[in-house]
């Protein structure tokens, strides 16, 4: 066991998602060092509730299904899961993503070597829906003279570079809660704002230079796909710039404050 819990937020269910769910749970099951518990936190909609009433979970894993009452957004699902977590660490696994098979084992090695780190980011492999390699995320902080300390993310670096991924990361629950968790009122840049807030609060954030997480980029109907393509959810370049700037303003505040973009 690893003193880590995994949170899988689920917003909707269809045949494609069902397929992804099997694979993502399989990627947990394949770990040589298994998590203590897996929380599947789903949106409170009729279809999703129906599916999880009869969902068969693998015997090898300790899985608990949690309904995120009355809410459907990603941030509140994650926070709802975190409140349930009883281990020191947790990790968020998006339903269309997978862990690399030695991720938890590697994390354990790094936890022993660096006992004051609050967040271990994985080296993320971004793929398209055909699982073709698109690029890495979180790798840049290992580049020479990129961040203040090689391998670690800091506030100044974040103010210049926004593209970091916390899905798959191993996060210390106590630290996460102490800075106010994810903010539901932030659209588009909620991860960025959280990282700014975490580094502002002196979190030590390190990328483990090992492939830890496979992330499907811009899957159809995913949150970020909707931001780009869904007429109802679409975010214009102006709005995107607004949310980036908003993240830079909001990270000084621990708790979520209502924010609206007005055109």
């Amino acid at each position, binding site marked *: 066991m690893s003193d880590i819990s995994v949170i899988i937020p689920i917003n909707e269910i269809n045949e494609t998602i069902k397929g992804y769910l099997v694979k993502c749970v399989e990627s947990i099951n394949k770990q040589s060092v298994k998590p203590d518990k897996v929380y599947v936190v789903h949106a409170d909609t009729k279809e999703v509730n129906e599916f999880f009433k009869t969902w068969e979970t693998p015997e090898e894993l300790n899985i608990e299904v949690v309904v995120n009452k009355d809410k459907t957004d990603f941030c509140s699902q994650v926070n709802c899961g975190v409140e349930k977590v009883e281990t020191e660490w947790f990790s968020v696994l998006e339903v269309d993503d997978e862990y*690399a098979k*030695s991720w938890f*084992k*590697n994390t354990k*090695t*790094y936890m022993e*070597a*660096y006992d004051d780190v609050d967040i271990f980011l994985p*080296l993320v492999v971004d793929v398209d829906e055909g699982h073709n*390699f698109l*690029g*890495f995320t979180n*790798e*840049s902080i*290992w*580049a*020479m003279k*990129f961040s203040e300390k*090689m*391998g670690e993310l800091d506030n100044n670096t974040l103010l210049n570079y926004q593209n970091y991924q916390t899905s798959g990361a191993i996060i210390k629950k106590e630290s996460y809660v102490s800075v106010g968790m994810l903010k539901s009122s932030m659209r588009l840049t909620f991860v960025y704002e959280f990282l700014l807030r975490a580094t502002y609060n002196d979190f030590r954030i390190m990328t483990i*230079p*090992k*492939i830890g997480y496979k992330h499907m980029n811009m899957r159809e109907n995913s949150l970020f796909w909707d931001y780009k393509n869904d007429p109802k959810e679409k975010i214009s370049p102006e709005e995107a710039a607004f949310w980036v700037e908003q993240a830079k303003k909001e990270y000084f505040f621990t708790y979520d404050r209502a924010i609206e973009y007005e055109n």
Partner: protein
Amino acid sequence: MSNNDQIVKLTHALEKLKSKDAAIYFLTMDTKGHAKASVTLTYNIVKELRENNYNAIIMHEKSDYHDITTWLGDEYKDIPHVSIEAKQVEVIISDLVVIPEVFGHVLEQTKEMPCEKIILSQAYDYALETLPPGLSWRNYGVGVCLTTTQTQVEYLKTIMGNLTYYEITPDIGDVFKKHDKPQPPLISIHTRDARDTMKIIKSFYLKFPQFKWITFRDLRNLTLNKFAEDLSESFLSVWVDDISGFGTFPLESMKCGVPVIGKVPNLKPEWMTEENGIWSYEFNQLVDILGNFVQKWLEDELPEELYTDMEKTVKKYTKENFHNSVMSTFKAINERKIMEVRMNLEKLTPVGPQDNIEEGSVSELFNKN
């Protein structure tokens, strides 16, 4: 020189050899404050000899020789040095001058020195560099060559067979050790030609742009401690040295637990196996091998056997084996020299040299005769 004068000299030489007081001068190049494996080995031999009561001394050409403790460490600070330029060298018949093969030109200048000269060949490729065509070390009165591997012995025998060869097994020092934390994505690179370093780095980034965030470290011009520290901090090292005689760098790397991708040198090192590293005969293939290795390291897919074979390989190069090889070599040379001096004394004295010569004075010997 009269017969008696010769007897005095030889008797004195015999005393010195028996008491290990005879000087053993190691002609050494000035590295100008930079670490160099061949010079490290020379200092290690001198240190080992001195710790075992031999009178080993570093001899250098110029008076402004750079202090080696800056890169080699304080433990070498008590080793005596003499400068040829400052005329601090006075040799007598019992002394020994050890000349690196790269200093071949010195052989002509030292031809008339009244002492034995031997060659220390760490880089077989330079053996013929300064010798005129058709001449061997033997033509300069050299009968002994020390080298670092059996493969070099075999090779040198094919071109200069009429010498006695001794093999000194270098030890890979304890300064080379495993990093105490998981290794970051750093690659150490060590090539004889600096152009090769740049060729590898540049083509790697062009062929594998997804790995542009991985940093290369050229381990040139560092102190020994910094060199060892940087090396152990890497997850991989790259080695290109076609004319390497021993292959110190890959062994140092293995001792640090850092796998090596390397080009097989012209003379394949005897420790090199298919299992203890990733070796190629083709320089141009190295970058592809490198890309493949990096991917496997990131995916944690490297075979555990690679690391265990590295450990096995480097186990041979211990302080104890080094000590044994240095002691047996210099004991054999010293005993042979004692024998030669005795034989010469026998020729000059009707009843031969006295066995208790080390306890008595030379004049007592004359009185006895």
